[in-house]
């Protein structure tokens, strides 16, 4: 159900406040995309979308500014997009993170055994290798990401690493996956994970609530019945890279990490 239909279905006092809250978001340069995404949202089931809008109205009613009101509202509505039926879940998931973020996760998983710099050194050294060596328990224990974890997969070959059909270079990955804030000089880590070995977490179509406070490169897919979202490749996309499927899932360790992983 879309924004207007959902808005029409919530109690009157909330219904009267939501448009003002959305307009206030639209007036902030840093939240303009949130407002646009709320109006274009199609993946939230009706009761979840209602809940999100009512929370936004409620937070606004309590005197919060638009940014803080949105922050409070989206927290309770993450991972509420339509779930992917188990039979349709891809066998291999792909995740891209900055090397710095991954190193922090690995250092954290080492429980004081490694510093961030040591974890980064090890990640660089193990990239492209068929084994993880001494770092294996730390790398596999490190979270794939924080909830909601954004992942992609290969539509044509869901049992293969999605990176086999993506550009191998950093710029190509940035463009295809819509990683607009990544600087050209920031190394990226490419993690492909076996879905079953990762614990077969629930997979959901992403929504504006999952994009949360970082909505700037998220675009709701117009068709509500589609089981997953699509990335918005960055302009000018001179190579004509196709949008990639995207899903969100709860956080979990990298137990199913397929080797080798890559740093580009």
């Amino acid at each position, binding site marked *: 159900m879309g924004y207007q239909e959902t808005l029409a279905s919530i109690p009157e006092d909330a219904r009267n406040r939501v448009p003002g809250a959305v307009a206030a978001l639209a007036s902030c340069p840093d939240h303009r995309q949130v407002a646009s995404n709320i109006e274009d949202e199609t993946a939230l089931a009706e009761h979840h979308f209602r809940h999100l809008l009512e929370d936004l109205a409620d937070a606004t009613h309590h005197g919060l500014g638009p940014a803080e009101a949105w922050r409070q509202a989206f927290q309770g509505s993450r991972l509420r997009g339509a779930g992917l039926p188990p039979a349709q879940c891809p066998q291999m998931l792909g995740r891209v993170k900055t090397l710095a973020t991954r190193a922090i996760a690995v250092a954290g998983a080492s429980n*004081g055994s490694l510093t961030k710099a040591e974890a980064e050194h*090890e990640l660089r050294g193990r990239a492209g290798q068929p084994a993880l*060596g001494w770092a294996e328990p730390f790398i596999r224990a490190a979270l794939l990401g924080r909830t909601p974890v954004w992942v992609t997969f290969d539509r044509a070959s869901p049992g293969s690493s999605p990176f086999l059909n993506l550009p191998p270079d950093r710029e190509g990955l940035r463009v295809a996956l819509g990683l607009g804030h990544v600087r050209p000089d920031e190394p990226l880590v490419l993690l492909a994970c076996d879905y079953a070995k990762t614990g077969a977490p629930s997979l959901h179509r992403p929504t504006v609530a999952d994009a949360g406070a970082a909505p700037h490169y998220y675009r709701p897919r117009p068709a509500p019945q589609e089981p997953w979202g699509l990335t918005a490749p960055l302009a000018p996309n001179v190579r004509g890279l196709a949008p990639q499927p995207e899903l969100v899932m709860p956080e979990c360790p990298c137990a199913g990490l397929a080797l080798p992983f890559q740093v580009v």
Partner: protein
Amino acid sequence: MIGLEKVNGLAPTAIQEWLAGALRGREPLPKATPDEPPHLAILRLRHELTSRADTALADGARALLGQFCDHPTSQPDDYAQELVALCSNLRDPETPRRLGDLALRLSDFPRISDDLRFAVLGALVDTPPPRDVAFWRQILGQNPHKDAGMALSGILAVDWRAGVSLLPDLPETESAGRAAAIKLDKTWAYLSAEHRASLVDAVRSILPRCPRVISQPVGDWAGTKPAAAPGNGQSVSLLAEWSPTFIRVVGSRAASARFRCARLGAPREAEGVLVPA
């Protein structure tokens, strides 16, 4: 860029307040992925800030770090870890000094979480200038089991011989052994060819005195590296033989760790220590 217009438009005094909120995840930031830690997005934003705003941001971070170090248990853990990580990356010379003072008082704050404790010590390892062996020996004295990994990193960074001498006293855990191999590999990567071989020799010499969970991964690591020509590293081998005598005399493992740090890291001081043995 997200957040840029806002921060550049803030008065310098307001930037500190903005920074405190941003580190708590309350401000829109140019995150690479939505789950990226805030401090990394702040560092990204910093590339685009006006010089005035950038200076104010650095000043604000310094002030917030001062508040944290004065009252380290008064802030939420996530915020404090983000702040420490940010300050570590800003390379303010004040940061290692403040964090170093706090690290030496960590035992005064039993409520500090392990994660925050490791964040502080890890930042001290990763942020130049490196602290000396005596500093890390004090850290080790506060909590030899919990802080051994960070202390080993800190000591290897300034005196690899002293670091190698700590290996027999590491906690007998698989994690400690694996981490030791990683730390030695990183140390090795930054040494000249001559010192690399000496490091490998020193490690091989001390392996018989290490518990199996340490000697196995460390030995595997040493086995992947070429050793020195005969003769090099002999002094370290001798010291490794002397240490057990000292351990028998003094009796405690903590004392033996301190002895070996002193002997290998600060020869003049150690000469005096060795006399009773």
